[in-house]
């Protein structure tokens, strides 16, 4: 049974316990947690909701198959009423910064988990005190220990597959007896080839003032993707540190409806943008496993436009929205959603945009500030043909280096994690079909020679990405400007973004490290950072570009007082006591972890305080 889709008429007569803006992973978790405690919930979703049904999902796959440009949002029809940034393809962001934020998110039911890759990495304990430990960015008002129980809940909800011991080596802490719900996804054949080169290098140094020696060792990444359940798994209990022995059963895999809810990963090699067998978690899975779906109403195609407050006490009284009839028409009606509690779960950029559009910059003035993302340095090469690597097989990433996620070098330069791309060079701008075009059109290859050419130039591709930590900085920000609106008259985000030398230094370091790895593999470097690229920059006389990571965060940071932050340790707005801002926007730092797992954990944490508020 799935949650109930309603119309404007229905909701106009109801005061909900909770009104949530956004049906992505954060909003879905809050909806599930609160409805299961008997609360009535309304979710306003700016995008469309066909994907909730299997038929709708199949349509998304078909759209992807038929798309000429198979970008991260290609399974979803372009929706001019609720645009999604797609690596600048649609120009939704108004980029005003020195460098572009770029990247993408998805405004559709299930949010950006509809195209995420699925890495689910915990942040490290020291990431929560970035300012205190290393003098950069911001500290969190809570610690890793505070978040640990919620990490376990998030890992259960998402269904995380990973090697707990490897994560401990990387610096994450786990309570005794705990393992991740499913076993790690097996490393790829390509990983095995790269491992040999990395093992030859053994160790490297990083940092100039206090050089540290780092031993290189490949490890796998935890992923929100169905593998094989771990027999030792114990699920979160009813108190913080309690674990209950309970076989983990991935949603779908062992049920009578695997096709509808997700099978085991089959190696479709298409994690981004869409897994045809739903082995990858997306937030629809949370929405479709709500115990009391009749408690949750979903109003889709409803773009939140304005948060109304009572000026006397700051409490939110309503959220106004525009509901459009369909994506091919800009016709809309306006409506109002009323409730006792309000939750913005529309992602870091959209949450801040909505608050600023409502003229609610917060007492701290930090609404929209501290915009973060992980800039990625890419480096790519061709492996020697003495051994065919068979690139383009398996989940997009299985292994990488987590050895640079911690260390005192973080005083000088940012932490990073490296991934080996099983999906080849695509992210660099040269996909398999680009190689095909070049081979046929420019090199006039045909027949058997063409086949060999393609094996040589695609099956041997190696792309390494280096995901760099970007500390919070108030000048990186989202703002609104009446000049820039979409066709419904809603604001488009205006972005001011730059990458500091603190990160560029690491990108330069990563580039050198990649060349060292290529050399030990006998691989030929093909990286080219074109000066005309909007994300091109120079550092110490070398040119590079970076790619956006879509890990938008920081725009409504949590902190210790109303003067240094937008929300408190429970993600509740300091200024509006019945308003929560959930999602990556509340994170004061992002470490070298993809943000979804942490923001999912925070959504569980915030849900507990919401329940306490509703009881009061």
């Amino acid at each position, binding site marked *: 049974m799935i949650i109930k889709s309603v119309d404007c008429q229905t909701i106009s007569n109801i005061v909900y316990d909770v009104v949530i803006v956004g049906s992505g992973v954060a909003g879905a978790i809050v909806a599930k947690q609160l409805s299961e405690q008997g609360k009535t919930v309304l979710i306003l979703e700016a995008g469309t909701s066909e994907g909730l049904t299997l038929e709708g999902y199949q349509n998304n796959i078909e759209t992807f198959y038929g798309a000429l440009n198979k970008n991260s949002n290609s399974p979803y029809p372009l929706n001019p009423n609720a645009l999604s940034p797609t690596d600048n393809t649609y120009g939704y962001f108004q980029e005003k910064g020195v460098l572009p934020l770029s990247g993408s998110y998805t405004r559709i039911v299930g949010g950006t988990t509809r195209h995420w890759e699925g890495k689910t990495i915990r942040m490290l304990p020291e990431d929560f005190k970035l300012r205190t430990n290393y003098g950069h960015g911001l500290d969190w008002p809570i610690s890793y220990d505070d978040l640990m129980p919620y990490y376990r809940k998030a890992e259960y909800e998402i269904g995380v597959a990973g090697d707990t011991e490897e994560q401990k080596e990387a610096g994450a802490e786990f309570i005794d007896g705990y393992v991740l719900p499913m076993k790690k996804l097996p490393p790829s054949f390509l990983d095995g080839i790269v491992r040999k080169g990395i093992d030859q290098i053994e160790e490297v140094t990083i940092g100039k003032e206090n050089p540290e020696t780092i031993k290189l060792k490949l490890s796998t990444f935890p992923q929100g993707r169905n593998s094989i359940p771990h027999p030792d798994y114990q699920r979160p209990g009813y108190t913080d540190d309690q674990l209950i022995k309970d076989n983990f059963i991935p949603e779908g895999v062992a049920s009578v409806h695997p096709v509808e809810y997700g099978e085991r990963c089959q190696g479709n090699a298409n994690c981004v943008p869409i897994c045809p067998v739903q082995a990858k978690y997306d937030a629809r899975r949370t929405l479709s496993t709500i115990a009391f779906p009749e408690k949750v109403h979903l109003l889709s195609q409803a773009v939140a436009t304005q948060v109304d407050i009572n000026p006397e006490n700051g409490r939110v009284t309503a959220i106004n929205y525009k509901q459009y009839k369909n994506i091919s028409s800009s016709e809309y009606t306006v409506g109002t959603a009323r409730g006792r509690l309000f939750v913005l779960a529309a992602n870091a950029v959209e949450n801040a945009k909505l608050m600023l559009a409502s003229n609610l910059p917060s007492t701290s003035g930090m609404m929209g500030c501290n915009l973060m993302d992980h800039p990625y340095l890419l480096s790519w090469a061709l492996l020697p043909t003495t051994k065919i690597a068979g690139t383009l097989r398996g989940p997009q990433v299985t292994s990488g280096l987590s050895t640079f996620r911690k260390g005192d070098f973080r005083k000088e330069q940012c932490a990073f994690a490296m991934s080996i791309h099983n999906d080849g060079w695509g992210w660099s701008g040269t996909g398999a079909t680009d190689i*095909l075009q070049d081979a046929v059109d420019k090199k*006039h290859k045909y027949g058997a020679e063409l086949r060999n050419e393609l094996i040589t130039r695609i099956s041997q591709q190696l792309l390494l990405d280096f995901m760099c930590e970007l500390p919070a900085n108030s000048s990186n920000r989202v703002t609104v400007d009446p000049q820039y609106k979409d066709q419904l008259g809603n604001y488009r985000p205006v972005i001011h973004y730059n990458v500091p030398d603190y990160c560029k230094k690491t990108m330069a370091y990563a580039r050198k490290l990649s060349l060292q790895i290529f050399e030990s593999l006998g691989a030929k470097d093909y990286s080219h950072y074109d000066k005309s690229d909007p994300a091109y920059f120079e550092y110490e006389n070398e040119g590079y570009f970076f790619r956006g990571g879509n890990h938008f965060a920081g725009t409504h940071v949590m902190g210790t007082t109303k003067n240094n932050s937008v929300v408190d340790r429970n993600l509740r707005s300091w200024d509006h006591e019945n308003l929560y801002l959930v999602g990556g926007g509340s994170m004061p730092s992002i470490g070298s972890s993809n943000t979804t797992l942490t923001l999912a954990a925070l959504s569980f944490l915030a849900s507990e305080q919401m329940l306490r508020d509703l009881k009061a």
Partner: protein
Amino acid sequence: MDIDTPDLMEYFLNFSAAVTGFSRFDLLGTGQASLYFSTIEGIIGGEIFRELLQTFHELYVRANSENDASILTEGITDEILMSGKLGPIASNIIKLWYSATWYQLPDPWREKFGARQNDTSFVVSPYAYPEGLLWQAIGVNPPGAKAPGYASWQYPPSVRLTSPKN
């Protein structure tokens, strides 16, 4: 030109086998032959398509009767791929089989031989995409379809380099 013309469809398959490096068996196995045939015809028109196929067929017949494969391989290069008129169409046919995508013909061709109304870049059908020969050529599944199975990616690939025959 009639799409059901058996001769031209034969020529098309023989031509496609020669330029893609895949057998007729593989090509027919995609289930896309008649869709591709009608797509090409619909875009460039019957006349020029027929010229391409007949040029190929004459080479094919000569190569067979004289039992000299080089007539075909050299002819494909000299008379077809290097031809300003037929070359870009032949290249497009290779790319069509490999990626289920028709790419807009290059500007010089459009200027010289006339821009065709339907000549835009597009995937000819959603379910042609998984049948693209590119994926088979490099021994992988089309991303998002025909999955090889859990953990298959940890084993060596099935594909290997061959010694070119043509």
